[in-house]
């Protein structure tokens, strides 16, 4: 389990790392945000359904894909939450999945407004 110190050390969104990754290319950044929002809105219900149905394989696969996307965007805390969900699903720990999904939901709800705000700021 991720400890408190690790959690605090992580940023909701490591923008500096992301900007370095995209070589400061704002156009690419907009593309990536667009892809993320579209994919996230598609993946989220599918992940929730897998957890609700106890489909561990699907929950692990979907959270793995989500983890990759979030990590690429520098969304450290949300990526860690997705990683935890993947780990629990892979280990067959079905009872812990709902809590882990809630944590991921919270992290995502913190992240998404920050992304939207940045996108709006850059656009103007």
């Amino acid at each position, binding site marked *: 389990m991720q400890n408190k110190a690790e959690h605090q050390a992580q940023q909701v969104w490591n923008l500096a*790392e992301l900007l*370095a*990754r*995209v*070589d400061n*290319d704002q156009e*690419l950044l907009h*593309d*990536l945000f667009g*892809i*993320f929002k579209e*994919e996230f809105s598609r993946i989220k219900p599918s992940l929730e359904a897998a957890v609700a149905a106890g489909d561990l394989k699907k929950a692990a696969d979907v959270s*793995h*894909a989500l*983890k*990759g*996307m979030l*990590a*690429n*965007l*520098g969304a450290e805390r949300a990526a860690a939450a997705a*990683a935890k969900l993947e780990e629990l699903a892979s280990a067959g720990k079905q009872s812990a999945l709902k809590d882990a999904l809630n944590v991921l939901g919270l992290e995502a709800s913190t992240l998404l407004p920050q992304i939207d705000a940045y996108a709006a700021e850059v656009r103007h």
Partner: protein
Amino acid sequence: MKILIADDEMLSRRLLEKTLDRAGYEVVVVENGKQALEKLCQPDGPRLALLDWIMPELDGPSVCRALRKRSEQSYIYLVLLTSKGSKLDTVHGLESGADDYLTKPFNAEELRARLRVGERILLLEDRLVEARENMRFRATHDALTSLLNRGAIMDLLGRELHRSQREKKSTAILLGDVDHFKRVNDTRGHIVGDEVLIEIAARLLGAVRSYDFVARFGGEEFLVVLNNCDPAFGPNRGEEIRKLFSCRPIHTAKGPVAVTMSFGLLQSADWGPKPLEHLLHAVDLALYRAKGEGRDCLRIAMPETKDEIAFDETPHPARQQN
């Protein structure tokens, strides 16, 4: 340089595509391992690949294993890209045939640096292949004329005669020798002699079909193998080839040099069990006859059956006269 990105995750694909496009690569993007394998197996496919570990159809390590089984193909530098991070995963990834391993999320600088390593290795491989091909060419071709050399034509001829026998199709062996070549060397010099040999090689090559063979058999001796001949084809083509030399001189740096050639020809579809050396001896005897009967002519040693090839072990005096 072409590079393949195989990743089932759209955001990662877009990010990699743009990063590598900016770095000057020609990027090919696919969404699963099966598509990656297909692209990489194409003759002009990418030789540098970034493969996500977990993908539908085939995962990254499976793509690596499948590619490494294909030994005849040019080397492909494979980098596994994944969020897996344990030592065990690294070992598993590299043992599947990957050359390198990069953890997601990648750092753009590190990615480019690792790909440059891949490019250096591919360049080194290209140089080694080129050196090997040069050595192979030198081992099978004559340095002056670039025709096949004696060893190579003997090998090809052996195979060709087996094929001829199996398919019951006639093959003609034409052995030619430049008349009085020593005089060319003695009076015009060896450089002109070399020019003459080079032009002879060019005329011979220009006179045969793409599936025939021409070799420099010895100093001024040339061997032509004409495949799939009907009975009249070998002698007729032999005569045409002979006339290529008597009809016009060879232009050299020291002026035109008139050159003729004498030929011996052996043609059959039923070569029997006799060793290649015996057959070549028979065609050599026909060439001796051409020399002895005035040169600039073609003489045929065409036995009715394989047992009727005459083997005269006595060297012909004409051969010593060139």
